[in-house]
């Protein structure tokens, strides 16, 4: 087989794939192909159909219509096990590995033990693991380390090691860099290029379009279940603008729709806050102001609201709301008594009730106001429905169905449901922790617009983010944290990306 032929062979071809779910058509006749040694970038807003497409390739869903051609033979992929046997390996966004087994075992499970009764030859699997890990640049990781002691980046490499052991020919990465630091991301992208050299085909799905642009040979853009564009990135470099334009139907004039809002008096003041991870943090926020809190991973920024609303133990420090010294023991008190709401960063685990309907998710923090106290706290359903339908409309939650379970919404719409809580009752201060993580470009702008709306209503808005562009674009004032300490406070005019990163990485 000549080198030319080797690189030209299409390993996977999808033709006219359709997939329908109750109430929504997720894929509308999508066709694409991947060659050996090619990296295919797959981008699109949330709900565009990327995940559905990946799941079809990995055998989790079956397409309603369309052909799947694997190595020039038409096949149907019935389940993930079949996909693995065929040589397709899926690295999910959330890396689920049993925490109490060793690295060597994690790599060997299901690969080395061909027969169920075979005894584990630890020395063999450890040597094998070592060999593969050193190929992936993890030579000094002891194969006997337990999975729970690994970082997200290392876990990802373990999964890739598994894929190599299983002789995977097509690797699918679903948002692989979302939990990696900047240097880890760089290393990961280099690894992708290495894998490409050994002839492995890869599909790369990410919201970080710049990353997709740096490594992909081909970029396919999905929107609303249609394939709207395919770019060849090998000859001429595709630009970010081209891709974004294809991704979003309407032109987004302002990525950061910041509006000047009149700033009032101080509504929340925190003095010398001290917890196990935070040291001597002081700041204040005024009505109508957006205060940005910036810090890199591990800086402790996410712990600030937790300590203030009573989710984490506070060792010292004063909290002053509206000039009154207060003590908050629980989030219930924070919301009901003092009007301080925390909208958490981890939408799935800390934010939403995915098995409950949209309506219940929106009003969960305001039921005390919607209930008729005299009758067993009965909820005034007329009032509730009015509030809910108003918010669904105002926040443009799609589909606008209050009884749909949140699990069936796209990421961006889930985030809007979560944020709608801030509008469901009168408040004074809102903490928004990473409000735009993992959602598409269009939804990001919508969420940022909502942030401005909150400020306009006279709330003190505290935006906690590790995305410096967002902090710079939205905040009136920025405080920067590093290793649990406040290292700087800047006005909007003074802040630049360089200064932010310089302080944050101290």
């Amino acid at each position, binding site marked *: 087989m000549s080198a030319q032929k080797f690189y030209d062979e299409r390993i996977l071809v999808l033709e006219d794939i359709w997939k*329908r*779910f*109750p*109430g929504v058509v997720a894929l509308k006749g999508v066709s694409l192909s991947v060659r050996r040694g090619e990296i295919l970038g797959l981008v699109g807003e949330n709900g565009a159909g990327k995940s559905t497409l990946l799941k079809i390739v990995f055998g989790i869903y079956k397409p*309603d219509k369309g052909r799947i051609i694997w190595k020039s033979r038409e096949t149907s992929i019935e389940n993930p096990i079949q996909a693995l046997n065929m040589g397709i390996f899926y690295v999910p966004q959330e890396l689920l590995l049993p925490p109490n087994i060793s690295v060597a075992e994690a790599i060997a499970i299901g690969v080395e033990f061909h027969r169920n009764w075979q005894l584990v030859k630890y020395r063999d699997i450890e040597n094998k693991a070592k060999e593969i890990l050193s190929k992936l640049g993890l030579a000094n990781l002891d194969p006997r380390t337990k999975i729970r002691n690994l970082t997200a980046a290392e876990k990802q490499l373990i999964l890739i090691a598994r894929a190599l052991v299983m002789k995977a020919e097509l690797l699918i990465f679903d948002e692989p860099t979302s939990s990696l630091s900047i240097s880890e991301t760089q290393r990961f992208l280099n690894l992708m290029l290495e894998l490409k050299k050994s002839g492995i085909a890869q599909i790369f799905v990410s919201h970080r379009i710049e990353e997709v642009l740096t490594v992909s040979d081909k970029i396919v853009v999905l929107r609303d279940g249609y394939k709207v564009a395919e770019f060849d990135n090998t000859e001429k470099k595709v630009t970010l603008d081209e891709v974004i334009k294809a991704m979003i139907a309407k032109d987004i004039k302002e990525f950061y729709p910041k509006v000047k809002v009149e700033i009032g008096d101080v509504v929340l003041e925190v003095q010398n806050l001290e917890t196990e991870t935070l040291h001597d943090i002081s700041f204040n926020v005024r009505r109508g102001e957006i205060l940005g809190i910036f810090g890199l991973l591990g800086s402790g920024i996410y712990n600030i609201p937790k300590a203030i609303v009573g*989710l984490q133990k506070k060792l010292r420090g004063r909290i002053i709301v509206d000039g009154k010294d207060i003590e908050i023991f*629980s*989030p*219930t008190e*924070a*919301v*009901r008594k003092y009007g301080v*709401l*925390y909208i*958490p960063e981890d939408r799935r*685990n*800390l*934010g*939403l*009730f*995915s*098995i*409950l309907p949209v309506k*219940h998710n929106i*009003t*969960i*923090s305001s*039921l*005390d106001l*919607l*209930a008729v106290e005299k009758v*067993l*706290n*009965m*909820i005034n*359903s007329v009032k509730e429905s009015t509030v809910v339908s108003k918010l669904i409309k105002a926040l443009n939650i799609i589909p606008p169905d209050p*009884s749909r379970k949140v*699990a069936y919404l796209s990421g961006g719409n889930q985030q809007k449901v979560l944020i709608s*809580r801030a509008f469901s009752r009168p408040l004074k201060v809102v903490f928004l922790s990473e409000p735009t993580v993992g959602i598409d470009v269009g939804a990001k702008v919508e969420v940022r617009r909502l942030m401005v709306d909150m400020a306009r209503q006279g709330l003190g808005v505290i935006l906690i983010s590790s995305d410096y562009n967002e902090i710079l674009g939205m905040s009136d004032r920025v405080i920067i944290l590093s290793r649990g300490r406040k290292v700087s406070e800047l006005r909007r005019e003074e802040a630049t990306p360089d200064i932010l990163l310089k302080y944050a990485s101290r």
Partner: protein
Amino acid sequence: MPRNRGNKSSSEKEVVGAIKLDIKGLLLRSPEIGTLIAITSLYIAIGIVNFRFWDPMTLLTLARWFAGIGTLAIGESMALIIGGLDLSVGSLASLSSMVFAHLITNAGVDSTLAFIATLCLGVVVGLYHGFIVTRFSPPLPISVPAFVATLGSLFLLRGIAIGYWKGYPVKIYDISKISFLASPYGGIVILVIIAVLTLFIQRYTAIGRYLYAIGGNLEAARVAGVPIRNVVVFAFVYSSACASLAGMIYVGLVASGYADIAAGQELLAIASNALAGVSLAGGEGNVINAILGAFLVSMVRTGIIFLGISAYWQDVTAAILLVLAVIVDLTRRVTFGRA
């Protein structure tokens, strides 16, 4: 195109194509229908084998025992919805039957007062469970401390019921004192009242919403400002109060208190819920599911006697029902991605 929910699922059916898979999907989506089908077909099937099963008197006897199991299952549903578990309801019902009968026969207390006092016993036990669970819950899912605390009570309450009366039952000689409970419809009336009240709480009140929120995602409920401790305590108190009621319903049936009258029925209560759609993982199902499940379970227990199987085999049927219930619940959760 405006479409209601039913149509949406039917459009999915067209896509899936196979009718067989469809029925499975429908049953999994609305477990009430599945349970109703099971009830109807069992009723017909057992009756074909033994015509006396269709006798209205059989149905009445079945309904009177069902009143007890149903009340237990309704209480249990509260503990299950918050993602907890109450293993003590059988023992508590037994102890309540003893206390109720003792108060009337030995202490000569007026039956209304005895009723209230027994209910208070349930409330106190529930408060104790709620206290333990909320005290030790934070780093754990609720089911872990709930399992341990209520398992302890399972033995503690049964031990008291046997120990205090030295294993003897307490007979009520003057049935007229408990004429309401002893009447054929007494238990059913209580069951209906409790069912309506529970449905109202679960569907239309703030505390009902909080129950589902806690069971759906405990951490998210905490962040959203749900008063977790109060709601968890409420759920356990409700469960225990229902257990005490069930104990008194049984007294009405046999005119005595027995220390093992409801022994092991916590498993029937759990099976009733899980069979008919109250998820063991929390956050799903309501009182209607619990009642349908309880009726199915009661019918199976009565039905085996009509099939000529000795009543001594009832524990075996209970075990089969429980395992079946867990399988049904797991299948449902796996299908909807909540395993």
